[in-house]
C-alpha cells in the first residue's frame, strides 16, 4: 500500500483523488440524465418560433418546421463516435505507458488522445455550423435548443478533457521523469466517462430518432 510521500492510508484502498473523480462521475450521471430527458421531451416541438428563420425557410420552399431527421447526418456522427472511442483506447494506452514509465509510449498516446479529442470537437463544430446553415439555431425551436444544450454541454466536457490532457503533456515535457499514474488514471476516468456519455447520446439522440 505504501506509495509516494504524500500518499495517505485510505480505508477503501482507493486513492482519494480517484474516489473523488468517481463521485463526480456519479453526479454527472444526473447532469446528463436531466439534459437527455429535456431533449427527449423537447425533440417533438419542431415548429420554428423565430420569425426570421420561418421566413427564410418559406422563401426556400420549405415548411417552417425543422425535425431531427431533416438535419441529422448519421455518417458524420458515426465517425465522431468512432473517433471518441479511439481516443478512449489511446487514453488507456497512455495510462499504461505512464504506469510502466515508458516515456515514448506515454507521450505518444497522450498526443493521440489530444488530437482525437480535437478531431471530435472539429466534427461537432462542423455539425453545428451545418445545422445553423439549415436554420436550426438555439432560438429556432425547442428541439434545437435542447439538442444544442445536450451536445454543447458534452462538447464542453470534451474540451475541458483536452485541456487537462494538454496540461499533463506540458508537465511531461517540463519534467520528463514525472510519472504520477494516479493523476493520469483520474483524467482517464473522466475521459472514459465523457466517452460513455457520448455512447448513450449517440444512441438516444441520433439513432432512436429515426425509429
Amino acid at each position, binding site marked *: 500500500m505504501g506509495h509516494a510521500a504524500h500518499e495517505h492510508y485510505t480505508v477503501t484502498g482507493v486513492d482519494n483523488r480517484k474516489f473523488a473523480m468517481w463521485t463526480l462521475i456519479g453526479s454527472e450521471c444526473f447532469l446528463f440524465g436531466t439534459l437527455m430527458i429535456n431533449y427527449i421531451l423537447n425533440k417533438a416541438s419542431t415548429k420554428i418560433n423565430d420569425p426570421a428563420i420561418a421566413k427564410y425557410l418559406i422563401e426556400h420552399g420549405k415548411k417552417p418546421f425543422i425535425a431531427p431527421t431533416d438535419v441529422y447526418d448519421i455518417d458524420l456522427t458515426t465517425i465522431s463516435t468512432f473517433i471518441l472511442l479511439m481516443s478512449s*483506447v489511446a487514453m488507456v494506452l497512455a495510462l499504461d505507458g505512464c504506469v510502466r514509465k515508458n516515456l515514448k509510449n506515454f507521450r505518444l498516446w497522450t498526443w493521440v488522445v489530444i488530437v482525437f479529442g480535437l478531431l471530435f470537437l472539429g466534427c461537432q463544430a462542423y455539425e453545428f455550423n451545418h445545422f445553423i446553415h439549415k436554420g436550426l439555431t438555439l432560438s429556432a425551436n425547442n428541439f434545437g435548443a435542447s439538442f444544442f444544450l445536450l451536445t454543447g454541454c458534452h462538447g464542453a466536457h470534451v474540451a475541458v478533457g483536452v485541456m487537462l490532457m494538454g496540461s499533463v503533456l506540458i508537465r511531461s515535457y517540463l519534467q520528463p521523469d514525472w510519472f504520477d499514474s494516479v493523476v493520469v488514471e483520474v483524467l482517464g476516468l473522466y475521459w472514459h466517462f465523457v466517452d460513455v456519455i457520448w455512447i448513450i447520446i449517440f444512441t438516444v439522440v441520433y439513432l432512436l430518432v429515426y425509429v
Partner: protein
Amino acid sequence: MASSENHVSVKMYWIICIVLCAITFLEWVIFQFESIRVNAMIMVPALLLMSVVKFILVCGWYMHLKYDHPVLKYYYMAAFFLATAVMMALAVLMG
C-alpha cells in the same frame, strides 16, 4: 490502488478496442438497410443492447471498475440507476 500492478494487459485493451469498433460499425450498418431501420421492433432493442454492451466494456475494463474496491461499483450503479429511474418517471409524468 494506483494500478502499479495493472490487472488489464495491453492485449486486452486492443481486443476491447476492436470489439467496440465492431459494434459501432454494426450500428452504422443497421442504419443503411431501409427495411431494418423503419422496423422499431428490431431497431430499439438492438441499439439499446449494443450501447449497453459498449457501456459495460468501457466502464468495466477501461475504467478499471472490475478490479477496484466494490464500493465504487455499487456507488456508480446506484447513481446510474437512480438517475435513470428518476428520468423515466419524468418521461412518464410529462407524457
